[in-house]
């Protein structure tokens, strides 16, 4: 079922959580909502599910308008056939694990036997088969979360909303369940909306990713598009582009002078849009060489000293202070020789111009960005 939100707006008292939000989810499509904490993801889902009455806009599911502010039409939640995994689990403490999962099936008036088998299947799927008879409150956090997930999976709704359904599970389990979810979603042609803070999760599950900032969608694109062409610097940063530097001035030949001491960066491609811009590039695209290696300074190749170096398993993440005082994040394979850089060691860093992107800082600067701690860099 297609889900269409237009001009959606939700305010709790005078706190506006969702403002004038437009979003279309194709039938059978899986959209992942990415956004800073408190940007309105849950609120949006609650509106779609029918748990909150929006203060404006319309919501269409399939070809049925379930909410329309103008006509005050508001289809009750249980008639929308929208499943939701609550961020707070909302597992019923007074029921056993099995009873929790059976609920949506009982609603469907299935035979007792069938309810039980179906419920047990789902429980096995999330690895809780052995806990079926356990009181739902006598579980670990992750187990409860899986109960909540199983409950919604058992429902087989036409639209499924998942609000950080795997946040408390270990990487391995998350991997498997993620694949399961994706399989089911594809098999059943389930239209789903998914909130996660884990990028690989977003990428693995999403047909399209919607970036949400301050109660509205600022970019909606396929994972690859999004990563290759983020619309703004803030999105780029949000997606983990560790290096974002404000641009002071640019010349036609694609050379950009950064704010501050005035380092120049070469980049390919024209700056998109007008207004303030930033130069962004990935830590993975930064190459670190021993200081003074090679003769004439090439483009985008600067001297600096290692300030910090954190082991990250397969990679090592370093922070290098350029002579201009700019802090550059770099990450390199932990196994390759010379990946270990001592703090204070002088090095030379290089970024290929084609890997540098020039992006506008904001679009629609009217929307105040939500509470967000000052970034460590820039």
């Amino acid at each position: 079922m297609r889900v269409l939100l237009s001009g959606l707006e939700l305010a709790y008292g005078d706190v506006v959580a969702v403002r004038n939000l437009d979003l279309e989810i194709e039938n059978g499509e899986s959209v992942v909502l990415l956004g800073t904490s408190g940007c309105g993801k849950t609120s949006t889902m609650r509106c779609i599910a029918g748990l909150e009455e929006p203060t404006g806009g319309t919501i269409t599911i399939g070809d049925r308008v379930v909410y329309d502010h103008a006509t005050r039409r508001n289809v009750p939640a249980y008639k929308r056939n929208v499943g939701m995994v609550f961020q707070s689990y909302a597992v019923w403490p007074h029921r056993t694990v099995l009873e929790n999962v059976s609920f949506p099936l009982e609603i469907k008036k299935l035979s007792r036997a069938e309810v039980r088998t179906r419920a047990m299947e789902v429980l096995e799927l999330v690895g809780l088969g052995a806990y079926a008879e356990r009181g739902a409150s006598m579980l670990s956090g992750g187990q409860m979360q899986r109960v909540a997930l199983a409950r919604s999976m058992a429902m087989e709704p036409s639209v499924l909303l998942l609000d950080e359904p795997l946040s408390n599970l270990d990487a391995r389990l998350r991997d498997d369940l993620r694949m399961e979810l994706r399989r089911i979603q594809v098999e059943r042609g389930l239209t789903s909306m998914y909130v996660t803070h884990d990028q690989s999760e977003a990428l693995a599950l999403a047909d399209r990713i919607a970036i949400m900032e301050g109660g509205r969608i600022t970019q909606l694109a396929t994972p690859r598009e999004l990563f290759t062409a983020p619309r703004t610097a803030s999105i780029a940063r949000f997606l983990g582009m560790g290096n974002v530097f404000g641009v002071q001035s640019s010349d036609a030949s694609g050379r950009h002078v950064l704010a501050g001491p005035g380092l120049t960066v070469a980049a390919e491609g024209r700056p998109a849009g007008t207004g303030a811009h930033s130069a962004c590039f990935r830590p993975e695209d930064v190459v670190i060489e021993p200081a003074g290696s090679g003769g004439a300074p090439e483009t985008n190749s600067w001297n600096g000293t290692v300030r910090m170096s954190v082991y990250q398993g397969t990679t090592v993440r370093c922070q290098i202070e350029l002579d201009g005082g700019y802090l550059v994040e770099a990450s390199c394979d932990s196994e390759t020789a010379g990946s270990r850089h001592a703090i204070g060691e002088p090095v030379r860093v290089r970024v290929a111009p084609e890997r540098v992107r020039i992006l506008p800082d904001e679009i629609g600067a009217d929307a105040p960005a939500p509470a967000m701690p000052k970034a460590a860099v820039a």
Partner: protein
Amino acid sequence: MTVSPPRADRPVEAPPDPARRTGRPARRHSGWKASGPLLAILAFLILIPAGLVLFGAFSVDVPRPGSIGLDLTLENFAVLAEPEIRQASLNSLIIATGASLLAVLLGAGVAFLAARTDVPARPFVYLVGLTPMFLPSYVGALAWSMLGSPGAGLLNILFRDLGIGLEVNLYSLGGLVFVMGMYYAPYAFLLVHASMSMMNPDLEEAAVVHGGTHRRMVRSVTVPLALPAILGSALLVFVLVFENFPVAQVLASPGSIDTIPTYIYRMMNTYPSRGNEAAALAVVLVAVVLIVTWLQRRALAKRSYTTVSGKGVKAGRIRLGGWRWPAFGIAAVYFALAVVLPLLALALTSVRRSPYIGSLSELFEEGALDLSAYGAGTLGSFSFWSIVGNSVLVAVGAAAFGTILSFLVAYVVYRTRARGRGALEGISMTPLAVPAIVLGMGLLWTWLMMPVQLYGTLWVLVVAFVAVQMPQGLRSVAASIQSTDRDLEDAAVLLGARRRRAITAVTVPLMRTALSATFLLLLMLSMRELTVPLFLYTNDTKILSIAIFDQFENGGALHVAAAMSLLYCLIMFVLSYLPRRFGKGLGE
């Protein structure tokens, strides 16, 4: 591609453990540290008085001060074999079952409306749930006998005047169930309202989102989560109705329906009174109540009823939609039947010259009315006001101590691993089972024998009330202590607060609603408590309920009695104001 489902975790069997009722098992304060002092207090308050009378069941002579003999016997239990008792207990069972069903239905229903829905005029609906308790049940019963007695009931007269061919008869099992049910509903109301206003809407919403209609949601989430409150109040109401004498006396005897309470009353009323046999009866009741309590505890132990958790409790109301007004209507009808009509009847009696009414038209005859009942005898009299003063003092005192004690006991029983938790709960529930008239003697004896000179002061009344109402208090607090997640309190402890501080800073505020409901309940019970004070009051410690009783005992023309009852309701209303203010639900 498919991924074979993950293997289940280590298979584990989790047998229910009573202490696990709020998810994480209770594991602190083991030993007697927490329970010891409370046990000691309860021993004085309850164990000795109840013990004395129950001892009577096995003793030849009445164990009153000075004559406590040690020659034991089982003779007293012969009473259980008396043929009359069979019919009596059957009737009582029918009445108690019917009444408690009705009470829980009404009480929980109104509580649900007031706490969880957008019913019109919610504050009023809250009052609807509460006010029936402003009338002592025997006053309510009398009022209803004025209204619904076969020939002379005002309603029947009205019907006759209007030429409607129907007659209500309150002197019947149905009538008893009806009246008792109405006047005990507030128990269920207060308990259920408290625990429902601690509901976490997320849990309800989960049901709706998964396809449940609102009706279904209420059935499988809202109500089950209030189960401790519902079962608790059902237990209270059942036993209290089972033993209620005043109402039975007014409604059952005229209809020649024998009940256990009338039976006990008669045993106590013959010379020499058969107190020991009554005690024998009490012993059986105590046993029953303790077993039921235990069963209830087992039943609840299998589950957790935690609604107030650390992930936020947002206030949310269920939209009734088309049902808003019908629901309100039902509440209004209940209000009319339980409060308005009886009060009208009382008002009428208080101003009517002759208690006899042939037809309502008489009310408008010359000089049919006079207001003297509100004059010298009551409002105009100093002694009346001093009596009111006593009542208020005692009631507030008893309610305050009762609430605190109930909370402590409930906390130890439901939140700790202390030794003797079973004993604590058992002792606290005992007064429920001992008929007031018997327990009254026990208290009399106890406080006569105590070295401390409480007897003859208002304090003895306070102490006695606390004891008598312990079960009500405990059930009320216990119902909702189970709905707050203990992690919330533990968090405070981990932030460096002593347990005491953590409780006062977190648990108590979270249970605000429940505690003020408990206070309210005990307050009103203390105001109306009658049988027990009869054994303990003196001239300077006379209280309102007794003054009213004295007036009713004159029989015949009840001007003053009725007038007093009305004033009494007024006082109750005023008294209940503060607790009601504090009782606002979480997130409201």
